């Protein structure tokens, strides 16, 4: 499908969502409108809801019931249970869950009295488990954002990438909001000399213990008024250099870093031995400290521009979760 057709599909969905939300037909306005709607709904219940509680309140608002599959048996049982109720959607997509599908939401054909209209099946088996919380937020955002779900027709479009990214964004904005979250993040960001893994972990335990550190760190970083990168490193090879060494696999800049064009750390970038990230990988302990980005080199030995940053890292499983905070230079 050509990008022009893909773009038409995406723009059509943006216009439909904007009509439904009564806002301007652009991404920023749509995200703001969804967040306002979420804030209004959550504040009606209690203005002090944490992100985990907001997710629960928004699922109620959007009439979404969650089913979580943690094992193959769970997945098969859920798909079969809904099939017996005449809801065949999950069973029809069962094989896709063994691939890259993380979650799917269906509109029930025949909900019983009092039952929720939508059911979201979240695959939390194995590695997918780390994304459970965000998958829930994403699925709750669908019915809030897409009025056509209520009428049970879908504009057939292949623009899933851009649209699903927007749904991700809306889900995060709706859930990671509210007074407890905003205040908690503000305190964590005030810590000197920069954001630490321990502070992110503390936010997680108080606000949304089912969420991954990465999700919490990204959401917190987006509230900062300085550039922050959230990173995941692991031993891996690259096209040019297949020898497995410690490399950055997932670099996520916050909004300020994007606005300032700070994309120094690209995917597959080697992690220098002196970085707290490499130290954490070796020691398996939390490591943190200042480092100079001038120590970071690409496969041809070309160094990044010198820049003093605060890096906090925690070894987890086969990799290292890290936060790179540009506070020191701000």
């Amino acid at each position, binding site marked *: 499908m050509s990008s022009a057709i893909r773009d038409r599909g995406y723009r059509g969905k943006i216009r439909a969502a904007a009509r439904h939300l009564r806002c301007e037909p652009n991404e920023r306005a749509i995200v703001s409108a969804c967040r306002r709607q979420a804030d209004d709904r959550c504040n*009606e*219940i*209690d203005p002090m809801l944490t992100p985990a*509680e907001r997710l*629960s*309140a928004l*699922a*109620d*608002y959007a*009439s979404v*019931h969650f089913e979580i599959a943690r094992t193959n048996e769970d997945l098969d049982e859920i798909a079969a249970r809904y*099939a*017996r109720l*005449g*809801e*065949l*959607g*999950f*069973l*029809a*997509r*069962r*094989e*896709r869950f063994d*691939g*890259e*599908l*993380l*979650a*799917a*939401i*269906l*509109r*029930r*054909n*025949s*909900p019983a*009295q*009092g*039952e*929720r*209209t*939508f059911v979201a099946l979240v695959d939390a088996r194995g590695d997918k488990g780390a994304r459970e919380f965000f*998958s829930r937020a994403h*699925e709750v955002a*669908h*019915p809030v954002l*897409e009025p056509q*779900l*209520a*009428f*049970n*027709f*879908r504009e057939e479009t*292949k623009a*899933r*990438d851009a649209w*699903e990214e927007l*749904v*991700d964004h809306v889900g995060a904005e709706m859930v990671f909001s509210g007074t407890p979250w905003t205040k908690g993040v503000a305190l964590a960001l005030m810590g000197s000399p920069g954001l630490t893994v321990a502070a992110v972990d503390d936010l997680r335990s108080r606000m949304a213990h089912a969420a991954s550190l990465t999700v919490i760190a990204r959401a917190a970083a987006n509230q900062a008024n300085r550039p922050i990168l959230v990173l995941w490193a692991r031993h891996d090879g690259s096209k040019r250099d297949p020898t497995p060494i410690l490399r950055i696999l997932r670099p996520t800049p916050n909004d300020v870093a994007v606005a300032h064009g700070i994309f120094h750390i690209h995917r597959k970038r080697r992690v220098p031995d002196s970085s707290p990230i490499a130290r954490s990988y070796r020691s398996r302990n939390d490591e943190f400290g200042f480092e100079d980005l001038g120590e970071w080199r690409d496969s041809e030995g070309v160094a990044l521009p010198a820049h003093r940053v605060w890096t906090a890292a925690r070894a987890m499983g086969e990799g290292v979760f890290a936060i790179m905070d540009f506070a020191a230079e701000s």
Partner: protein
Amino acid sequence: MASSLGARVRKLREKQGLTQQGLAESAGMSVSFLSEIENDKRNPSGRVMLQLANVLGTTMDYLQRGTEPAPSPRREPTTIPPALAEAAERAGLSYRATVTLHEAYRQIVGRRSNELDRDPTAEEWSAMYRALKQYIGD
């Protein structure tokens, strides 16, 4: 339909085979408090209502007002994709079974995935039919 909040809580609890103690424990409240709610002697806070709605698999709207979700809308006419038509012809499926299979696939209205959605191949439609056969009953 049950006429009050308390009656709706009780009806859903009983429908799910839960005792007052079971529901109270799951929703994080005392049995006596739940009993008062079911007898319309207490007006629960928003947080409590949310907990009850979550455990009972219903919505706060339903508990508070008895509001039912809008009935499932009439199906839009569907166009059978060529790959499904091919699979249906191979398996000798009736038109009704073919449409049911297509509707089952389309019942998913949103997804989160690391890859783009793509239409199933004829082989995938055939596998889907085998998985759903007992429910489609063709």
